[in-house]
């Protein structure tokens, strides 16, 4: 009987201690971010989908279609094509497709590229109802960006999945 009462007392005390923790937490600031209204900033090393890098001097893509990234990718989601133009030493890229539905965001491609021609984007909340939206033509995107830079009247970039870069 005494043990029983002691257990009830001890149990009640343990519950009270727990409640005190809960109550103390009540007055602390919230730890969550209210997502659609605020979003977090991605860290510099964040691995989003990849994108081509432009040469700051010429504005062209740095990539010369050596296909090293294509081989390094474990998920076979990169397709690179390039041609050798007249009078140039290296090939230049004509097509760079990324099948983002298969990409495992491992980073092998960026690491494999010795000329730093690809980088990770910081877009992290990409949403679409269509699978086709995630098969990205990165070269086309870069070209349209380039022409948008060149002209005052910017041509709209090709349809891309809705993405917000914070």
């Amino acid at each position: 009987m005494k043990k029983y009462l002691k257990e009830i007392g001890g149990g009640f005390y343990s519950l009270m201690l727990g409640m005190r923790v809960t109550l103390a937490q009540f007055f602390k600031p919230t730890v969550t971010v209210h997502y659609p209204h605020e979003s977090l900033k991605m860290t510099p090393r964040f691995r989003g989908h990849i994108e081509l890098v432009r040469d700051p001097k010429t504005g062209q893509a740095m990539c010369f279609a050596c296909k090293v990234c294509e081989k390094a990718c474990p998920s076979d989601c990169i397709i690179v094509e390039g041609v050798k133009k007249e009078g140039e030493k290296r090939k230049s890229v004509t097509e760079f497709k990324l099948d983002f539905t298969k990409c495992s965001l491992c980073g092998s491609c960026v690491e494999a590229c010795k000329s730093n021609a690809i980088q990770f984007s910081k877009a992290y909340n990409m949403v679409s109802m269509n699978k086709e939206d995630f098969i990205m033509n990165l070269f086309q995107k870069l070209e349209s960006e380039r022409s948008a830079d060149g002209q005052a009247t910017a041509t709209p970039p090709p349809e891309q999945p809705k993405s917000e870069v914070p």
Partner: protein
Amino acid sequence: MSAPEVIPASDKPCETFVLNVGPQHPATHGVLRLKLTMDGEYIMRAEPVCGYIHRMHEKMGENRTWAQFLPNTGRIDYLAAMAYNHAYVAAVERAAKIAVPPRAEYIRVITTELNRISSHLVWFGAFLLDLGGFTPLLYAFDDREQILDMLEAVTGSRLTYCYYRFGGVCNDVDADFIRGCRDFVARLRPRLKMYRTLVTDNIILRKRLEGIGFISQEMCRKYGATGPVIRGSGVAYDVRKIEPYSVYREFDFDIPTFPEGDCMARYLVRMEEMAQSLRIIEQAVDKLPDGPVLSSGVPRVLKPPAGDYCFAVEAARGRFLVRIVSDNKEIPYRVRLRTPCFSNLSLFEEATAGMMLPDALAVLGSLDLVIPDIDR
């Protein structure tokens, strides 16, 4: 420990029914199916059916290069991806005789231990959620978020890190990360104390877990259960101590064991392990040497000499072993993965015979299963 009440065979009503738990059930944390032959509220036979998320990781190892298989290892146990990456890169390093710079080894230890804590925090939240307590999950995820933010800043990813490379790690850690580690250790210590007040000492939890789901040492040995499950039965088996790898020899830490063998013992082991991991992180951060983080002698096309190599690590759920067989080609001949959850699940049938259904779910939670790890 009171043995679970078993109805004597002669009194058994002859009617039993089969209850399916899963493959889509919140208590199984994934696509695990339990076929329970029930006699009323009592389980006569519990048969786990796995294979619903079988992704052929071992077979995939045989058709991609050594480096290309690395992202796969992080996806086997997605909650403790670091340890899995570690086992694989270390096995390949052993095969190709690549030396790892000391700084990289320390970084590996720090990140693996952080990952272990985050994995245990998920288990802590999810296990109590299974038992019907929602609040602890929110506290646990608050702490886990700090770890994920830190690891994200270093590795670029929050869950499937793919951070280790053959011969080191791919990015060096910065001063922010070191400061973050120190702050986190200082933060989690009082929080662990708070968890004790809030949850561990709670009379309802104790009544619910003490004496439930007894697993004996023999049973652990029979089924090859490792990790917190065997330590909860009183066996101090931890790969970090038994066959020390990396730089674990240099740290002072204990292997918590509890001899009771019930759900509460396994619970306490994991809670205590978090405190021990904090100790390791603290020491590793203090001792962190300078130097390169990636060995320069790694050939671009890796062809390990022919042979058979193993490497075991202590993952968050137990002993994870990678065995690779090389025939001196760019592609592995065989990659065998010995995952802890499969063995830990195997004893479920024996441990739950004659048990009440809610208790069996508590046992399932206390085994801390990650389903892709079972099926891989």
